[in-house]
């Protein structure tokens, strides 16, 4: 197993534990925006898609790589925007009761 791969496993395990710790106490109200925000973060695969496109060789690879960039960008841009829209409504909390 290469050194880089082992380093990857270390990073993966530690990041997973951080993910567990950061999320475990979140109020129900925020579950939808949290899910949507986390979903946008999973669009990090956009980095892989860009690298795959950059050096794609041949028509098939180019098409797959282009699709990868399109899909990942939809995930990232749409995900962050829609989360922001949801949270904007939470912020506008009318204290004008009574």
């Amino acid at each position, binding site marked *: 197993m290469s050194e880089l791969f082992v380093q990857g496993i270390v990073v993966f395990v530690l990041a997973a534990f951080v993910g567990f710790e950061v999320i475990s106490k*979140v109020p129900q109200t925020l*579950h939808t925006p949290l899910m949507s925000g986390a979903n946008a973060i999973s669009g990090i*695969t*956009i980095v892989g898609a860009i690298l795959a496109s*950059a050096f794609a060789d041949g028509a098939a690879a180019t098409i797959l*790589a282009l699709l*990868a960039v399109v899909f990942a*960008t939809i995930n990232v841009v749409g995900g962050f*925007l829609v989360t922001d829209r949801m949270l904007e409504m939470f912020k506008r909390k009318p204290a004008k009761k009574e």
Partner: protein
Amino acid sequence: MTTTTLLYLLAGVLFIIGLRGLGSPRTARRGNLIAAVGMLVAVLVTVASIIDDTGVMWWTIGAGLIIGGAIGAVFAVRVQMTGMPQLVAAFNGFGGGASALVAATEILATDGDFATETGVTVALSIAIGVVTFSGSFIAYGKLQGLITGRPMSLPGGPWFNAVLAAISLGVGIWAVWSGDPTAYWILAGVTFVLGITAVVAIGGADMPVVISLLNSFSGVAAAMAGFVIGNQALIIGGALVGAAGLILTIQMSEAMNRSLANVLFAGFGTEGAAAFDAGDRPVNRASPDDVAISLAYAQNVMVVPGYGLAVAQAQHAVRDLATALEERGINVEYAIHPVAGRMPGHMNVLLAEADVPYEQLLDLDHSNPRMANTDVVLVVGANDVVNPSARDDASSPIYGMPILEVDTARTAVVVKRSLSPGFAGIDNPLFYEESTMMLFSDAKAGLEEVIAALKEL
């Protein structure tokens, strides 16, 4: 290389700070922004790392970013709050699909000639990414009403998917062992079908859990793609989302008092749906005037929203009714079940859109003790989450699920289009209680009529 990796670490740290911010109402919006900045950093660093290379296909990258960005932005801006769960499902599917495609381009580039451990991660990115892709779009179809919300029974029941999963595993092992690209493509085909059959077998009421699990999957797929191309940013971001999604999924299954395995494999509600028969039991059919009168003479009113409210876009009507009642000095609160709607926290988002103050939203533990002191509970488009058989009937498929005990209030008013069972396909004894009034109407139209009747009083 070193600088690039360090800047990827910065992006990862921004993701963690952002996720942390998303966990609290006050910091949530900033948290989302911080995570988005992290993503921007990751993209810019990636572009910078290849800017001096020759032969980079910039047009592919540029075209992809522009097309994807435009599609994502249009959908994000246009969607109505009620359609949010579907949209998140769709975005999620695209993310999973992208990770699978990244792995696929690696297969093309190397002709399947990987070290064993890399081969394993290629197979996992393909399998998990493709399941996420096809499964998310089936979830989208169910939530959008394009596909029936009922769990579809497959030949052989849960064994069908178990066999398909075993085949996927076998093909995956074959692919890694032989390094034959064809094996990877077959793996993609089998897992595509598996994503479809796994999700069609799950009832619409369980879609929140499914979307959350698929969200976790899309993270894992991204992390696996990170291993394939040796990129730490993907590994960090993917692992974070994988873990966060899994926590949310477990929390939601617990809210329904079921194990995750039960949600995924039980084909919940198939038998109840077939057995349902309203018979000729009497119900108290109420007019909007009847409802207005009982509300007008109440002191404490509790609103229980459900998916029907989302479908009818009735959140503003609910808010208007609450305002009208508050003007009469009546105390109005909202009881939100953890799995009301089609997504965790779905109702909170809708009511927030209608400017309902955050403090008036009560969760299960806080609302149930208040029911006995509540004069009128107004159930708007909710069904399974107020079904007393979850508490009383050990033979009910939802037995043991915590419910909002609206039958303990003095009067329950149920606004619903018909007596038909909810997504779980189970009859609801609440509708036949003597203290229950049924207002058969679309949620929005019905509430507007009640408001009008209230003004006449």
